[in-house]
């Protein structure tokens, strides 16, 4: 479903309510009451329109006819009036619309599935708590950027948790961490292993990029705005980048430094998983 930053994310089916509630706009957020109302109106229209699988352009067109004109803008790219995409996605999440692939690269919207929902109290706080459990010491700005950039929302969450947080310094970065996690962080064994992660993997998304990849040139190679590569991780560090050309059944790995033959063999095993995820035969691996 459309989740943080309006980007499509995989979640457990039992967590659709949780995601909706954790990310639902509040009047105290940056957008204020007007944005809350806008999301609710578009969500109601989407709920009425998406009663069966429907391509996104068709859903957008039908929703446009059901919402106030004030919520519709001229889109030069589509050459049509429609609800702006960011608002449309936020409303889709609010309506618990589920995303699926369609023909010709079109996103297909599906109505909410009938699935038992796990009740999670204080969903927004629970989201932050899970973020700390997964990522450890974190700065408020890093969390805010991951969540979608809402300053008021992130500030409010930090204020709520202030009594539980301790200041932590990692490298030259000042972070916060729930005190209850401090021992787990200080006793963490050093990372060991190899993995080829895709461009938007959580390990690369939920992180202070400068802390993970201190070298500026390497950082620019890893986080490219368009058509970004995947990252080769070795013992926790980003040791290179990779790309998969399905038509050639080839994974090309570009190393940032030397890598032992044992680690190369492990990376080649991870490359097999990359192809397996798309149902392809094992690829050839080229080292660059």
């Amino acid at each position, binding site marked *: 479903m459309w989740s943080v930053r309006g980007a499509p994310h995989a979640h457990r089916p039992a967590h659709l309510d949780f995601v909706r509630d954790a990310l639902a706009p509040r009047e105290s957020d940056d957008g204020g009451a007007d944005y809350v109302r806008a999301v609710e109106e578009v969500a109601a229209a989407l709920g009425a329109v998406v009663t069966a699988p429907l391509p996104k352009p068709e859903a957008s067109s039908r929703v446009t006819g059901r919402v106030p004109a004030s919520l519709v803008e001229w889109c030069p790219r589509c050459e049509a009036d429609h609800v702006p995409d960011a608002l449309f996605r936020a409303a889709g999440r609010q309506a618990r619309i*589920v995303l699926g692939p369609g023909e010709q690269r079109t996103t297909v919207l599906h109505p909410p599935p009938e699935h038992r929902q796990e009740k999670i109290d204080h969903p927004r706080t629970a989201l932050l708590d899970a973020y700390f459990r*997964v990522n450890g010491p974190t700065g408020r700005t890093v969390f805010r950027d991951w969540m979608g950039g809402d300053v008021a929302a992130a500030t409010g969450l930090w204020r709520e948790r202030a009594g539980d947080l301790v*200041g932590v310094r990692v490298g030259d970065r000042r972070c916060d961490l729930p005190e209850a996690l*401090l021992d*787990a962080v200080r*006793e963490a064994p*050093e990372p060991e292993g190899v993995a080829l992660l895709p461009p938007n993997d959580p390990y690369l998304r939920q992180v202070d990029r400068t802390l993970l990849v201190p070298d500026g040139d390497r950082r620019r190679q890893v986080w490219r705005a368009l058509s970004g590569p995947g990252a080769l991780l070795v013992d926790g560090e980003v040791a290179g980048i990779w790309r998969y050309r399905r038509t050639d059944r080839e994974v090309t790995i570009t190393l940032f430094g030397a890598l032992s033959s044992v680690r190369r063999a492990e990376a080649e095993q991870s490359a097999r998983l990359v192809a397996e995820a*798309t149902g392809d035969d094992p690829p050839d691996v080229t080292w660059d």
Partner: protein
Amino acid sequence: MAIGVVLMSGVVTVDRARWLGFRWRRHGLAGRSRESTLDDLLLLGVQDSRQAGAKQSLIQRTDGIPTDSSPTDGASAGDTRADSTRTDGTRTTSVADAISARAPW
């Protein structure tokens, strides 16, 4: 005081290697991670793309995540990988188990 931690001016200094190690484990990349690791990851969401992004993220992790519960009902993303049983008798979670809020249902 434990290795990697120094307390100065009310701020705890954590060695970067410990930070990396914590994230490596909690992101399910350390091999034998707990099922709760995958729960937390999917609570936050795993970003998807037309290039099988979420599947590629999960497949790098799920081979190593044992589970003692039945497969997640209703979870399907068209993936056909079945659960596998290790030589020590523990089951590993397939991508189909792990994923997701995606159609078809």
